[in-house]
């Protein structure tokens, strides 16, 4: 019998430990990704329990009302899903493991993508009954995109109908993984007792109230045959990644455990092999061996190449190294509003950050002095001195936004491209009462800091608060969070597409603004032309000669034009792609004023605008649908019905990817329709592609709608 050892250090003693044991190869930054309800949060909870970070186990939808430790947001507790990625830290076999709880839901893409950026490896949790579900497919695609190496854990082996080997087959067929079992279960369903480790060829049992008593014994006789057979498969797969192992097998020499582990590790790091573990987190079986394998098989920060973009050099990629002596580079990947203020989670990629250091936020160039450096465990924290490269930590009381890069003064690198797309959809929200009003402002302030694609403003005319974002679901989630986290009761208006207006031809204007009815008069004449331009929103050019409009009023003219483009004369959408040139005008020595010229410019704009063939442009989204091949026809039909242009379809074995360009206005409710017509098996992503002219029939409809709305007001 052998007990697996765990290390637990009292928080008081922890202060200086991190600097002492920063051997980078003993650090793991991992994510746990999975389909909703495959037991991700339960697994995380058990990991924290076995690493002695928590001392009691709570269930996700707990009867005790406490809930699992990682889901710190109310909404997550209620729905049993994880929205925000809390980062937490634990230790196992002398390794430091940072667990970033990744949201498994497609709607929270920014969160998912940010957390995938900061982790080096992942555990893909699958349900032994449900197998590879649609969500696992999405999560897997995302991991593939960020080249995150992963190991798989087939959870819920205690449930009736559990079959881990069917899940392995699905991993191969549906996700095209080279999935290889490193364990076989001892008993299944209600009889699950433990697992057989195919590397050491030993049986592992879990005793004690919470399975903390791990006993290693010989393999039961009835499983020996299967174990030998599965081990052979494992050796075949592993030998692909190690000449040493192949040689040992061929020459019938002794094959050591280390040889197999390093071969499997090599395969895992290059994503050419996915080792599969199994057990039941809920029944406390198989979690400790999984933790062992995290330390043995998943990469440490220096195994992974990270790149930053050089801002001084046209955003060319620069490779970062985890050397502590180099200048400091870190990414703020998550903000959290705690009871003591704003907490900023960072991952250090290069150099190190200590208390009292001065760092620069690359986005705004602001210099910041670091007051407190902490390490998080869900919503509890502990103070530390330094965060070295490769580690995840948190900063206190620093004003920044998610996705900001921090560097040592003098460096100008950024971890994420500075490009933030403009929002494409907006929604009016109205608080129900005064308290909600206050809470709503707090929530909005925080959300817009966390997510650069989420914006908010107050409409001057209607006095409504408008929120803007990248899609219907994007906004829905934030409205939901306002209710839950901030108890802000708000009602929402209908989502509105961010249409734009522009002109199609050159047109001249010559406008006189004259008002001489009592009091001080107003006089100003503005003449010139306007024409379409591409690639920019607005250009103003002054070609006045001979002081026809006195110099001091030119700025007022520009101001007048700028006021006009905020709400286009055609349908009150913002005007873009327009160049205005003024080349003539007149003034009056007494009656001309800044006000008068501003008004004249507005009049001139209206006059020219309607001659310049104004049109409405609408956002066209790049829509990518991933669907099992059997539904590809249905999916194309759905896209086609929505004024979509299908660019192409890509056949990837069992899956088919359909790419299309679809107007955003037609995408409302698409996720529901897509789910219902593909048995929930298809997923889609959507991003802004371009702005295109609205077909005339649709423009007429829009005009009619605007008309009735105006009347309604």
């Amino acid at each position: 019998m052998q007990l697996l050892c765990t290390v637990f250090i009292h928080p008081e003693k922890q202060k200086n430990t991190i600097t002492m044991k920063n051997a980078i190869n003993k650090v793991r930054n991992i994510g746990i990704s999975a389909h909703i309800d495959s037991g991700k949060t339960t697994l995380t909870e058990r990991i924290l329990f076995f690493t002695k970070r928590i001392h009691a186990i709570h269930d996700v939808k707990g009867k005790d009302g406490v809930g699992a430790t990682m889901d710190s947001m109310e909404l997550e507790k209620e729905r049993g899903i994880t929205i925000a990625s809390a980062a937490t830290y634990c230790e196992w076999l002398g390794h430091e493991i940072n667990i970033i709880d990744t949201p498994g839901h497609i709607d929270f893409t920014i969160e998912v993508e940010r957390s995938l950026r900061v982790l080096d490896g992942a555990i893909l949790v699958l349900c032994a009954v449900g197998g590879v579900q649609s969500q696992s497919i999405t999560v897997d695609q995302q991991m593939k995109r960020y080249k995150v190496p992963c190991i798989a854990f087939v959870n819920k082996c205690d449930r009736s109908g559990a079959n881990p080997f069917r899940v392995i087959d699905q991993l191969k067929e549906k996700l095209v993984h080279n999935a290889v079992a490193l364990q076989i279960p001892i008993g299944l369903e209600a009889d699950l007792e433990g697992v057989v480790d195919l590397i050491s060829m030993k049986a592992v049992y879990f005793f004690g109230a919470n399975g903390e008593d791990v006993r290693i014994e010989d393999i039961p006789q009835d499983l020996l045959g299967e174990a030998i057979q599965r081990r052979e498969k494992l050796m075949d797969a592993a030998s692909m990644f190690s000449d040493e192992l192949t040689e040992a097998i061929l020459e019938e020499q002794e094959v050591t455990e280390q040889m197999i582990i390093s071969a499997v590790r090599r395969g895992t790091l290059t994503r050419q092999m996915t080792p599969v573990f199994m057990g039941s987190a809920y029944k406390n079986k198989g979690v400790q061996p999984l933790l062992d394998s995290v330390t043995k098989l998943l990469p440490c920060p220096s195994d992974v190449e990270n790149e930053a973009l050089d801002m001084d050099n046209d955003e060319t990629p620069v490779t970062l190294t985890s050397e502590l002596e180099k200048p400091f580079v870190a990414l703020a990947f998550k903000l959290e509003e705690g009871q003591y203020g704003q907490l900023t989670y960072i991952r250090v990629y290069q150099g190190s950050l200590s208390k009292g250091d001065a760092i620069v936020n690359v986005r705004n160039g602001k210099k910041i002095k670091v007051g407190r450096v902490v390490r998080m465990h869900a919503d509890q924290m502990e103070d530390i001195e330094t965060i070295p490269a490769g580690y995840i930590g948190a900063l206190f009381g620093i004003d920044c936004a998610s996705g900001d890069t921090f560097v040592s003064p003098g460096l100008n690198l950024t971890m994420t491209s500075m490009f933030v797309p403009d929002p494409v959809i907006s929604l009016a929200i109205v608080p129900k009462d005064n308290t909600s009003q206050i809470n709503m402002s707090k929530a909005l302030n925080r959300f817009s800091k966390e997510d650069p694609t989420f914006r908010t403003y107050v409409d001057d005319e209607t006095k409504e608060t408008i929120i803007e974002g990248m899609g219907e679901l994007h906004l829905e989630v934030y409205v939901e969070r306002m209710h839950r986290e901030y108890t802000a009761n708000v009602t929402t208006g209908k989502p509105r597409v961010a249409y734009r207006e522009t002109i199609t031809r050159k047109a001249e204007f010559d406008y006189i603004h004259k008002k001489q009815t009592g009091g001080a008069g107003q006089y100003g004449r503005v003449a010139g032309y306007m024409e379409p331009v591409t690639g920019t929103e607005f250009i103003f050019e002054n070609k006045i000669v001979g002081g026809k409009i006195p110099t001091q009023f030119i700025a007022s003219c520009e101001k007048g034009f700028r006021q006009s483009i905020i709400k286009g004369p055609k349908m009150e959408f913002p005007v873009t792609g327009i160049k205005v040139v003024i080349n003539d005008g007149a003034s009056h020595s007494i009656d001309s004023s800044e006000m008068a010229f501003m008004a004249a410019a507005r009049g001139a704009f209206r006059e020219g605008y309607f001659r310049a063939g104004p049109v409405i442009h609408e956002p066209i989204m790049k829509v990518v649908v991933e669907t099992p091949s059997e539904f590809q026809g249905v999916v194309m039909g759905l896209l086609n019905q929505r004024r979509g242009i299908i660019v192409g379809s890509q056949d990837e074995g069992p899956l088919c990817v359909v790419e299309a360009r679809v107007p955003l206005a037609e995408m409302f409710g698409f996720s529901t329709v897509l789910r219902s017509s593909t048995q929930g098996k298809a997923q889609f992503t959507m991003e802004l592609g371009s702005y295109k002219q609205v077909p005339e029939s649709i423009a007429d409809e829009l005009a009619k709608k605007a008309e009735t709305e105006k009347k309604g007001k």
Partner: protein
Amino acid sequence: MIKKELILQNPLRFIGNETEDILPEGDFGAVLARAGVGKTALLVQLALHTLLKGKYVLHISLDDPVNKISLWYKEVFRHLTKSYDAKEINKLWEDLLPHRFIMTFKVEGFSVPKLEERLTDLKEQNIFSPQMVLIDGFHFNETARASLSDLKRLAKNHWLHVWFAVKTHRHEKSGPDGIPAPILDVSDLFDIIIQLQPEGKKIHVITLKGEPGGSDRPALFLDPATMLLKDNI
């Protein structure tokens, strides 16, 4: 206006039959070359030529992802229309896009019945009905004749012109009439066979089969810089 000019200027009119469509319906054409010489570029030019005439083109690739094919079209189109006004060109491009459909398969996942199923699906739902089909990356191996015969039937049933890009290899010997190895055994199924032959800095466009003849037809080249077809360099 631009459309007409682009069609008239295009030296493609010197290839194949003097009918409007180069290739009659149900017929096969092939562009042969070694890797990297410009097969896809020429196919894309054939496609754009057809698109400009308002017809529908289905581009099937067994090698490259949709994005890459899309990029080919953008590049070739950009070169073709360099001398025109950007705004009008953008509009023309937007007009052409709905007429093109890119389908990619993994080589092992491609089969004629599967293609037929997809095609019927697209037609039945009124999503897309091509007149021309380009197939890039088709494997001309021992079983090719059976698949090609099936394809021929499909092409006849759906009134399609089908063009293939065929990769040749230096070490493979050509047949007696100069037709390179990969399609030697199935050349009877093809009505036009064009070979791209690099020579020094020039890439010659040689018609191996299906030329209407006539000495007034100028020699054709691919410009190595833009990969565009030229009748003089």
